[in-house]
């Protein structure tokens, strides 16, 4: 690992030691964050798969009803029946903070409370299969919204986990070793200078002694 380009001074050494400390603490925190995110993510993604399996089966079911309705009614008749919906759904998005990931929470609102309002047509002119299809769709709507919520959360968490993992790895394998080596390099350089200074002083002392007592040598 490369040693950073710094001056081997005591000030630089103190700075680097402080930086190394911060890096170590950040690394530990980020590692904890990654682990906790991962735990929650695994829980959520299992639920996501389970829910998706269920929802997909039920959407297929509703589609089957629709296919039958389509076979007994003409396209224009179906379109006319569904063209003017009475019900309107809107959603309020709240954000929940999970380990610094903002995951959405949906609160749905309907224009009318009446459940029968999902049928915007007269029953006289349409097939019962259309009723079945519409009812099936209305039944799975809460699950669909739940699926949307969970799936979006999973996507957001996955992105955050990836980011956190990268940061952890960068700290662990690049930053921290680099700091450690630079600190080692500087302290060795400083020790070397110190030894150099000691020998020089000893040498000077010798020379001065020789000058003072030439007969002793």
């Amino acid at each position, binding site marked *: 690992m490369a040693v950073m380009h710094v001056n081997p001074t005591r000030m630089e050494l103190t700075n680097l030691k402080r930086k190394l400390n911060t890096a170590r603490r950040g690394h530990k925190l980020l590692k904890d964050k990654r682990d906790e995110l991962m735990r929650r993510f695994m829980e959520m993604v299992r639920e996501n*798969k389970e829910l998706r399996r269920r929802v*997909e089966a039920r959407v*297929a079911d509703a*589609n089957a009803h629709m296919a039958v309705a389509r076979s007994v009614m003409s396209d224009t008749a179906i379109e006319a029946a569904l063209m003017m919906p009475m019900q309107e*759904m*809107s959603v309020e*998005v709240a954000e929940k903070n999970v380990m610094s990931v903002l995951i959405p929470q949906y609160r749905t609102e309907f*224009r009318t409370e009446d459940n029968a309002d999902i049928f915007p047509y007269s029953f006289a002119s349409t097939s019962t299969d259309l009723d079945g299809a519409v009812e099936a769709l209305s039944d799975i709507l809460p699950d669909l919204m739940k699926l949307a919520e969970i799936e979006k959360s999973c996507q957001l968490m*996955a992105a955050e*986990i990836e980011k956190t993992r990268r940061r952890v790895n960068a700290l662990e394998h690049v930053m921290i070793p680099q700091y450690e080596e630079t600190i080692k390099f500087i302290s060795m350089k400083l020790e070397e200078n110190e030894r150099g200074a000691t020998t020089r002083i000893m040498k000077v002392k010798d020379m001065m002694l020789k000058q003072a007592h030439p007969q002793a040598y």
Partner: protein
Amino acid sequence: MYKIGVMGDKDSVYGFSSVGLTVMPVDEPSEGIRLLKSVADDFAVIFITEKLASGMDAEIQKYRERTVPAIIPIPGVAGNTGVGMKNVSRSVEQAVGSDILAD
């Protein structure tokens, strides 16, 4: 206040209009991409048929890291193509490094 939309071929999406969702019948992926761009800010959730979703995957990925809209593939009348599940697996892969929940 956001709306909830359904995008896909006409046969798959029309049923949703009666339960209060906004339907956007789209057949071509290129058309879907354009439509998605223009409506993305009004919708909190957009359900999209798997068939259409597989044609405009690159565009959908752009919304992956945004809180709104959530773009959720659902099976259309053409049947279940597995795109939705693959999408979930992709999240696992992104987070873990490999799909450890594959079955």
